């Protein structure tokens, strides 16, 4: 009986990773600052995909976007002690990502060679064989999905930078107007105005391709 009770008890003891997954961001940050290095890995797992998509859709270069996401996490690691824990960790991480993406775009506009290399690396995706993408979908579905994704990526890239950031944060990252205002250092009115224009422009650009 004691053995059965022990087995039952041990079956419900969560691992450290499970404990971390059950915590909200503030709890994970506390764990990391308390000395648990695995908590940082939890933060990386929670945000790596979201930040990658945000930066990729802002700058249009997948490889470079991954480098910048790495940089985001390096900065988080180095400065988490100084992070104001009364604020949302998510907003802070996205603000760092937004600033890095803006700097990247600014540097590109000054260096035509970097812009050319970016365009080349984006086009190289077309050479990747389709069969490695998704084994469960039919080939024509896979083609359509890839075509649609490229279409959306190109349309988002065609938006002006200020509109693009707000659009991506809202439509792809699901951020609230207030969070977007904090991340982009704008007021609410500006966020709504930019979002309105971005949506109108996006719809106007992509609609002919959808017919």
């Amino acid at each position, binding site marked *: 009986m004691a053995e059965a009770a022990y087995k039952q008890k041990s079956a419900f003891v969560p691992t450290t990773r499970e404990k971390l997954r059950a915590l909200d961001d503030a709890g994970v940050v506390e764990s990391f600052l308390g000395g648990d290095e695995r908590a940082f890995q939890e933060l990386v797992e929670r945000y*790596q995909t979201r930040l990658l998509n945000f930066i990729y859709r802002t700058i249009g270069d997948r490889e470079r976007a*991954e480098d910048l996401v790495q940089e985001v996490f390096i900065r988080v*690691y180095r400065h988490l002690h100084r992070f104001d824990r009364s604020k949302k960790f998510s907003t802070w991480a996205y603000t760092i990502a937004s600033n890095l993406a803006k700097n990247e775009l600014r540097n590109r506009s000054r260096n035509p060679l970097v812009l050319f290399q970016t365009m080349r690396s984006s086009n190289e995706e077309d050479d990747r064989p389709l069969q490695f993408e998704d084994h469960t979908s039919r080939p024509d579905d896979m083609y359509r999905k890839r075509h*649609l994704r490229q279409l959306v990526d190109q349309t988002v890239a065609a938006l002006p930078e200020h509109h693009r950031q707000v659009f991506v944060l809202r439509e*792809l990252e699901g951020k609230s107007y207030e969070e977007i205002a904090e991340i982009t250092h704008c007021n609410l009115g500006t966020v709504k105005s930019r979002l*309105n224009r971005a*949506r109108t422009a996006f*719809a*106007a650009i*992509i609609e002919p391709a959808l017919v």
Partner: protein
Amino acid sequence: MKCREFKANHVGFIDDVLSAADMADMRRHLAVCASCATLDIRIRRSLLIVRNLPQIEPSADFYARLSEALKQAPAPAPKRQPFAAAATFAAVTAALAAAVYFAMAFTTDREAPGTPATVTTAEVAPIAPLPMTDAAIAAAVPAGIPVWPAMFMVGDLPTQLANAELLDSSLGR
């Protein structure tokens, strides 16, 4: 509702964050304005595609590369203690104030309060000539500055415009 107002509120209408009364106004305008209705459908359709787009995933070695980069990155910046910083600032300020106070105390003449300040002209003592022995000049001038050769020619300089007595006394005559 005019079209301009409809377009201005369209962001909130799409995101369903307007008040119930405003939402009803927006719907009423849609029912009577074909142009705004077309705009509304066009935007909603495009957003449907965007919001259902599959996300791109990081590469398989993303965390391994990040771990490597963290090992090479500088150590986390130390957290500044707010109280220690304030204490340091206060100490430096106090030291500066004390230095200024003592400097003023030793360099200015103290007058009894209420005594009106008077302006006096100090007598200026005649300017004494510098000791101009050759050995003293050579020792006083830092090496590399070609000033001292001119000192050997002092004796040959015209003296009619100079104070002859001062010149004689400086040259030891």
